[in-house]
């Protein structure tokens, strides 16, 4: 696969730590969290491998094009609509979570509406760009911010505050039966390449998906999951970690850079994560817009030769975020995110099966 594939992978792997994914896992820490993580890692990797493999058979074609070509309108329309909804929700979760975080840690004086508008304003410009530019942006921002993330991770692993006894304690629960919420939450971590449903359009050359790629996905996924679960446990202890609202931010605030002119790592972590979360929103909502373009398109809605239909979607996004976010309290946000995650990650199975069917029809 070309390198942009890995950026899509990396964005989800880093961006998930500010969403409710770690919290869902911590709730099941005395249940089957670890087993679910392992299971989802294996299954997720296989699913991603499979999806990507199918997309490599159709270079330059996205999911909507494939659906239109090989299925009837009655199947493609509901599928595209539900996919768009799922992707919109995935983006929305990140917007909500991050605006709550910003209000708590970085801009406490700013009204929530202001914070949301600020994020959505920049996102709206981004999602209207063509897919190529989105990928270039993802690449540049990821290249600038992922080294910082890795630096912070390494610093955390080596920090004195990291108590490996807690990790060992957590490891004791490895024998429990897996449970569904933590399974689907940890599945979300490696599902970044599912964005290929649109971005495969720009991968016009024949790509290769071999066991090497499989290995990369597996290893980085394992590292990301391990880090996002065990580091907060190592810092905050095992017993009551589920009471923390933002476990990762508090963990980042537990370490300091003795000689840096920014002493608290929290701020570097917050800004880097803001960048990566932004990418996550951008990617998800770009996919949503592109999917919606295939369902709804007003041919006559034009102004000076530009079709204004995508702007309608942007307005919908604005309304969606500005109405939903202030309405939610933080506990509600957490509960709904958990519901959404329960539903989101397995939705990839739907995509996988429809793709398998498409492949079968394409061969016939």
């Amino acid at each position, binding site marked *: 696969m*070309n*390198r*942009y594939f890995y950026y899509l992978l990396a964005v989800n792997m880093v961006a998930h730590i500010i969403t409710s994914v770690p919290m869902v896992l911590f709730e099941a820490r005395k249940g089957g969290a670890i087993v679910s993580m392992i299971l989802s890692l294996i299954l997720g990797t296989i699913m991603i491998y499979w999806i990507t493999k199918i997309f490599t058979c159709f270079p330059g074609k996205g999911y909507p094009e494939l659906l239109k070509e090989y299925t009837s309108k009655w199947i493609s329309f509901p599928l595209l609509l539900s996919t768009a909804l799922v992707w919109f929700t995935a983006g929305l979760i990140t917007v909500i979570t991050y605006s709550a975080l*910003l209000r708590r840690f*970085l*801009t406490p*004086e*700013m009204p929530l509406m*202001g*914070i949301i508008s*600020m*994020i959505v304003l*920049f996102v709206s*410009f*981004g999602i209207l*760009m063509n897919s*190529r*530019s989105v*990928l*270039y*942006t993802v*690449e*540049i*921002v990821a*290249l600038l911010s992922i080294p910082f993330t890795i630096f912070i991770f390494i610093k955390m692993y080596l920090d004195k505050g990291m108590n490996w006894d807690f990790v060992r304690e957590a490891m004791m629960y490895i024998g429990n039966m897996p449970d569904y919420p933590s399974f689907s939450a940890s599945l979300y971590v490696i599902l970044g390449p599912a964005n290929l449903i649109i971005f495969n359009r*720009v*991968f*016009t*050359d024949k*790509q290769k998906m071999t066991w090497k790629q499989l290995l990369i996905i597996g290893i980085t996924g394992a590292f990301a999951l391990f880090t996002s679960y065990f580091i907060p446990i190592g810092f905050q202890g095992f017993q009551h970690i589920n009471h923390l609202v933002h476990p990762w931010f508090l963990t980042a605030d537990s370490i300091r850079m003795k000689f*840096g*002119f*920014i*002493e*608290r790592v929290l*701020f570097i972590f917050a*800004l880097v994560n*803001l*960048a990566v979360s*932004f990418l996550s929103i951008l990617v998800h909502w770009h996919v949503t817009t592109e999917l919606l373009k295939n369902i709804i398109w007003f041919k006559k809605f034009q102004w000076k030769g530009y079709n204004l239909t995508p702007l309608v979607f942007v307005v919908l996004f604005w309304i969606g975020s500005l109405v939903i976010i202030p309405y939610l309290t933080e506990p509600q946000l957490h509960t709904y995110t958990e519901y959404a995650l329960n539903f989101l990650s397995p939705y990839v199975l739907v995509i996988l099966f429809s793709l398998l069917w498409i492949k079968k029809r394409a061969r016939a």
Partner: protein
Amino acid sequence: MQRSTKATETIRWITKQLKPNTDFVEKNMKIERKEATLLFIKTVVDGDQLQKLVIKPFFEMDSETHYEAYLQSLPSQQEITTKEKLIIELTKGSVIIVIRGQLIMLDVKKVNTNNVLEAAIETTTQGPQYAFSEDIQTNINLVRQRYHEPTLTVEIFEVGAKSHQALALMYDRETVSQEVLNKVRKNLKELKEPIIQSTVELKRVMSKKKYTLFPKMMVTERTDRVVYNLSGGKVVILLDGDPFAIIAPCVFFDFLSAMDDNYYPYFVVKFLKGIRYLGMFFSLVLPGLYVAISSYNPEIFRVQLALSVAGSRVGIPYPSFIEVLFMLLIMELLIEASVRLPKVISGTATTVGGLILGTAATEAALVSNIMIIIVSAVAISNFAIPINEMNTAVRVMKFVLLFIATISGIAGLTLGLIGLVMYLTHLNSFGEPYLKVFIQKKANENEGI
């Protein structure tokens, strides 16, 4: 003879058109059985050349036939197409000779602008020191002298509905992208401007879009840069009367490369490039960062630093963004003033400006000490950007980021920077993506997207 009547008619038309000019000359030469008429504009032709090439041989040749054959063989002879063309060439410095009922046009232009200038804007420490001249012939000559490849092609166009300037389009036939070339050609043919005075203006009218900030074509005065880009397959445009060349297409990274980068050792170049990118980053971010840090999130810095920032602001009677805006505006005024002022006075401007930007403003408790450092750092790091146009774009862009930081703090600043990246990746220069990272080998880089 029909030919002669047509020629007489043309002459009469030209004379009528140009008669009001006192410097227009119609001269009859006659000796024994030989006769010829010269038409030219005295102020634009080179008198010595005219005397040597045209007038003297006339009196030395045996017959009109000899003289005509002689004129036809001169290398400076020009092709005659239309009456209108004739008159335009006359105003540029050609002479028309009427002999045996036939018109012959020779180029005996007097050019006062062909001396090669020393590079003044993009200077290098070690490397070619001379830049272009203001004469297109000399400039083409300079390029050809440095690029001896038979595939180098020069196409001459004419731009300006009134100024009729010559414009040379140069490219290497083998490496140039045909798509870009066609776009440039089409672009040049569509120009409707009556007068184009400079290449920078040409660049602006070529880009068509009204609201632009970042340059998509590079304007350079360095011959080595032109040659380097020619060999890389880019298109170069030279305009008569301007010592700058346009290079197209150009992407973001081109504007941060200096020619020194090709001359120095590897690690030195990497270091210099790093400094330049850092300079651009500082000059974009520092003003906004100051506002964000001092007004929104002083807790980001370690306590001592936060205290010294806050301490230096003691006694300043307004919020930080006004302070920054005030100082930045003074700095921009200073830069603008030193560009516009005559060279004799510009020293005064810097001295006076230095006083304002220096201790006086701090002592008056109008701005903080740290603000002075930041403004100077912004100004200095801005000048580290080697190409002037990117320089000015960044100068404007920092105010946008300052505005975003003012309304939404450090988070807004981060988003603003990402927004800038998005805007840049969204642009394209003649179909080439404007901002895109190149990290793989060339063949792999173009694979896929």
